[in-house]
């Protein structure tokens, strides 16, 4: 596993074979490709958390997905406008760029330190799997003491891309998030199935 440096990133972005190309689109400026990462901009769509009348969110509830979807309000902030993120506020945003990794590459999304120094956390689920295609959802949290104005179009994160030991043939044909173009609310269907199995395991252990 090797971190791709500037020249390798440029080559990967310019690859003429679509199936091998690293896609970061639209790339507004060549300068976004740095020494060993690609700067990513903030997109225009956000999901804001809101308080509901429900007791909470329980992945074991059959209506879990309804509960989760009910947690968010979608807003669109056009380029040229801004959105305040208040202290301790959590919002889902997405990268302006649509990213697609070939099966030979993996990546990590990292917040830019300049924003981090204001208390803004940008991403918590940082690993991007080979074969992923879509805008990357950003978990935005203001851990600072002052509201921070977020402007779509500004660079907010960076993508560190690395090669794999070998090309993986294991690319999920039905990924959890398929070619998203905006922030995606949590999808924990797999975990719900796992919980059913764990419950059965619990039952069988209780009888022992």
């Amino acid at each position, binding site marked *: 596993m090797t971190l791709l440096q500037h020249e390798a990133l440029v080559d990967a972005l310019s690859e003429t074979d*679509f199936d091998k190309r690293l896609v970061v689109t*639209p*790339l507004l400026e060549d300068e976004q490709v740095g020494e060993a990462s690609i700067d990513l901009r903030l997109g225009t769509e956000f999901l804001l958390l809101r308080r509901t009348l429900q007791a909470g969110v329980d992945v074991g509830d059959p209506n879990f997905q309804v509960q989760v979807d009910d947690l968010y309000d979608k807003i669109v902030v056009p380029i040229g406008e801004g959105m305040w993120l208040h202290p301790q506020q959590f919002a889902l945003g997405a990268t302006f760029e649509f990213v697609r990794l070939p099966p030979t590459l993996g990546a990590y999304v990292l917040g830019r330190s300049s924003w981090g120094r204001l208390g803004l956390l940008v991403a918590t689920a940082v690993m991007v799997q080979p074969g992923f*295609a879509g805008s990357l959802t950003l978990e935005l949290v203001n851990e600072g003491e002052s509201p921070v104005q977020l402007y779509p179009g500004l660079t907010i994160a960076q993508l560190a891309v690395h090669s794999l030991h070998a090309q993986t043939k294991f690319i999920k044909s039905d990924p959890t998030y398929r070619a998203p173009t905006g922030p995606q609310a949590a999808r924990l269907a797999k975990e719900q199935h796992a919980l059913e199995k764990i419950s059965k395991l619990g039952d069988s252990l209780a009888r022992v």
Partner: protein
Amino acid sequence: MRRINYDVMGLHEVSPWVESARGSKLALGLVYFVDELVSAVLKAPADVVMTPSGTYMYSTIHKPFEDPLTNLGVTYPATVIPIIVSYPVHEPESLFLHLIIAHELGHSAIAEHNLDQEVYGRDPDPTATRDTLNLAVAEYVSHEGGTPAAARGRLRVILRNWLTELICDGLAAGFLGPSYLFTAAAFGAPFHGPEPSETHPPLTLRTHLLIEQLTSWGWSSLIESAVPETHAWILDTSTRPQQAGHRTYFLRLEEAIRRLSTAIEDVVSTHLGAELFRPDAHAPNADELSALLERDILPAQLLDRSAAPRRSIILAGWVHAFAKHGDEPVSLASIVGDRDQQRFLTKALEMSVVLERWTTL
């Protein structure tokens, strides 16, 4: 009192417009694309408010309240034209259906540029048109009663209504190419029979003229090769006779319109000018856009880093959708119902516009 009541009812209609003007529920890609449509089709600055409607499918109000406000001495906007476009309340994300907005803006283009008068002015055989209308007047009086003068007035209104719709179709097809044909087929087929009405020409005639225009502009080979089955069905639809029933005067109006078809095409081509969408503008990007769509890659930026042209994104999107859902007429419904793909394409439109503007800074 009746007048006041009428005006108050009209003002109630404004409420959803105000709400829509404050914040559109439509995706940014569509909002940007409507700006592009205004520039190309209307060719004048306009403030378009798109508002969801449960009453109308798609409709346009050009310069709302111009007369009452002017009568009250209120200065009406002179430089930016206010236009209200309604879209179906349940279809905010249907990019493919929203292409009808190009047709709707055509109504404003006709009002601003007198395109219908231009078509009449280019009638290749005014004598024949007059004779045909005379026949229609006689048939109207025979079936509906009334005086010939009243019948002539009524038929002129119907002819103008039909001509207006057909010019709007022509403007939309001229700007959007085959994408508008597919949209018109998807929108028109489920809701309209071949029967004409006093406000809208028969679907068969509309389809016939669209095919004729697109063929003239060089699109037939792309349509035939991309969707041969659907193309055959659309062709078949366009050759069916209208079901005028006892209202045979509708057949005469169709005769008159068919005689004006070349004039419609000429007026549309002249009006759109360089904005007329031609196959040679789409061909250089078609394969790359198709390859991107096949791989679920947002088709916003081409390999040379330029912004993908919006009309090509939409047309490639239609062709890709047929490949995904099958080349058959019934797929029109499933394609329009594929919200995920249309959201995807709308996002590509947004990104393409942003990229294009960025490079001009």
